[in-house]
């Protein structure tokens, strides 16, 4: 094997430009695959981190009638905070959130919104709720909502809602702050206000629609009237999206790899055709035909090894630079409807790099072996004579 590797390396280096072209194409495939996979991993990492920070916390308790996809059910999906959770609420491990339907009138147009009331001093979510602890009727909104409604910090607008009996009420509210979270579910159509204020508005004192818990809280599995939603469940849409994107990317990798491997395959075919005398000499020196096949297969596989080394030269700085500056999406990230930052930062794990190297090396070994099988059928005497077979 050692001899085979030595021979293969010598032959490859001797082949000159042909070798380096193959190595370059394979190394580009390496870098692109790692970069794209890293981008997906980075998106997954960022989306989940942002969701936990701005929307879901480490998990939630949902009122049994709460359906986030049906705002019409909001007025029925609330109940007093369960007594079992009151100590956790008092120790700020759990944040009660009350939701209600309302309408805002920015610049004379009408926009249905969901009001989310939560304590101004909460620390579980990164929302700047401390800005709600001011006089008047302050509210905070996300940047996506601010963009849609053309609202700015300090703007005053009318908010209209109904109390629990269905009677209309309205008030002038002030945009106390605008936050940017990359999480559309936390921003689009959401208006945040102080929990006590929202309790007073529809007359739902001490009630909540959901309870968001931090990672230090040990979730209760049985809570009458409430369903526990762990983070893994709340972020399943991200997982599904990542899975879908990964499948799409795999097709792209396949095409990319196919092009690189086609070059290796062609090189192998040409090599076997042009080096028949060499093959005959190996057999004459005592190599079995399958040992010669092995020699050529190792030689082909060495392309992948050299490409991996070459990738390190230009790919590592490139990938590290990308991890630092990120890749800014050419379209508005908020339009995706998923937790997604405008700039994605790739994350490269050891498993990702090792897995890619292994995949490309194995694929190269296979395409190197396929044309080499022809050697096993060669007549060694004809091969020595250089007869075309």
């Amino acid at each position: 094997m050692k001899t085979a590797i030595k021979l293969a390396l010598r032959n490859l280096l001797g082949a000159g430009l042909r070798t380096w072209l193959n190595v370059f194409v394979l190394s580009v495939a390496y870098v692109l695959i790692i970069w794209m996979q890293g981008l997906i991993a980075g998106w997954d990492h960022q989306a989940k981190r942002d969701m936990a920070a701005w929307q879901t916390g480490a998990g939630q308790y949902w009122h049994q009638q709460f359906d986030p996809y049906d705002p019409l059910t909001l007025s029925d999906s609330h109940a007093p905070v369960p007594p079992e959770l009151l100590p956790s609420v008092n120790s700020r491990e759990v944040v009660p959130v009350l939701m209600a339907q309302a309408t805002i009138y920015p610049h004379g147009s009408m926009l249905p919104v969901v009001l989310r009331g939560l304590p101004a001093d909460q620390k579980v979510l990164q929302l700047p709720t401390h800005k709600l602890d001011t006089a008047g009727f302050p509210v905070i909104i996300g940047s996506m909502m601010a963009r849609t409604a053309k609202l700015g910090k300090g703007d005053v607008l009318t908010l209209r809602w109904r109390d629990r009996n269905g009677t209309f009420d309205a008030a002038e509210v002030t945009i106390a702050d605008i936050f940017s979270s990359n999480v559309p579910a936390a921003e689009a159509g959401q208006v945040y206000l102080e929990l006590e204020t929202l309790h007073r508005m529809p007359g739902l004192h001490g009630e909540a629609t959901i309870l968001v818990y931090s990672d230090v809280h040990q979730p209760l599995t049985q809570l009458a009237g409430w369903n526990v939603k762990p983070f893994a469940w709340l972020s399943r849409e991200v997982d599904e999206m990542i899975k879908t994107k990964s499948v799409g990317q795999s097709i792209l990798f396949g095409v990319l790899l196919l092009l690189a491997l086609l070059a290796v395959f062609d090189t192998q075919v040409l090599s076997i055709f042009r080096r028949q005398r060499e093959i005959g000499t190996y057999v004459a020196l005592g190599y079995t035909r399958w040992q010669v096949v092995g020699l050529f297969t190792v030689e082909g596989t060495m392309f992948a090894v050299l490409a991996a080394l070459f990738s390190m030269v230009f790919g590592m700085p490139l990938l590290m630079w990308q991890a630092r500056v990120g890749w800014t999406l050419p379209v508005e990230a908020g339009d995706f409807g998923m937790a997604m930052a405008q700039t994605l930062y790739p994350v490269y794990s050891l498993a990702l790099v090792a897995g890619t190297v292994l995949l490309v090396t194995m694929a190269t070994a296979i395409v190197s072996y396929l044309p080499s099988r022809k050697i096993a059928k060669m007549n060694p005497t004809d091969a020595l004579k250089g007869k075309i077979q």
Partner: protein
Amino acid sequence: MRKILFVFATIASLNTGKAQEAVEILKKVEANMSSENRVMTTEMTIKGKRASRTLEAKTWAVGSTKSFTEYLAPAAERGTKMLKINDQLWMYSPQADRTVQISGHMLRQSVMGSDLSYEDMMEDRRLTDIYDAKLIGNEEINGRKVFVLELTAKVADVAYQRQMMWVDDGRFVPLRQEMYARSGSLLRRMETLEVRQIGRRWFPVEMIYRDMLRQGDGTVFRIKEISFDQPIPESVFSRAALK
């Protein structure tokens, strides 16, 4: 002391008298506006920021508890039917060929994008049953003398805590109505644009409804034809009539 008591008693009796007068006016309005049944063809023009659209419908109604409406125009809405029986509302859509019951919070949604909600159409309680009325003055609107009534909710489940109503003195037709939020903000205004004598009664035939918080020219509701106390077969008010 006696003088003070006398002044208080006089003010109290004046207020009671005004309240009774207001209730009488409101009752006359209700008597004028209600009928055993009615059949009418109406036009509803919804004026948006960029464009406006007009819907034409024919309605058969018995008192305020039963009504059947069929949309005649535009083509996109033609064949859409709505049936209201007491506090239940069904809607048939010819495109989907399905009948759905509109209930709960769906009743708060806008009817065909107008400034009116299903809930507005569903309200069949008498104003005198849900509001305390007070006569607060007399004014003039378009040369007509009007009573100004202030209505304050006396039950909890009403959409508007307070209303103001300007009632034509003599014809007992509301010429203007304003609906207020609990906080006192003006939310909606109705103005009567045309009143016509139909038989022995005066009836508003063109009204405009405006959401006062929103920019826009509101929704104009016009009665093209109306006839009162006509024989309407009971089969009209059945779910079978929707399809």
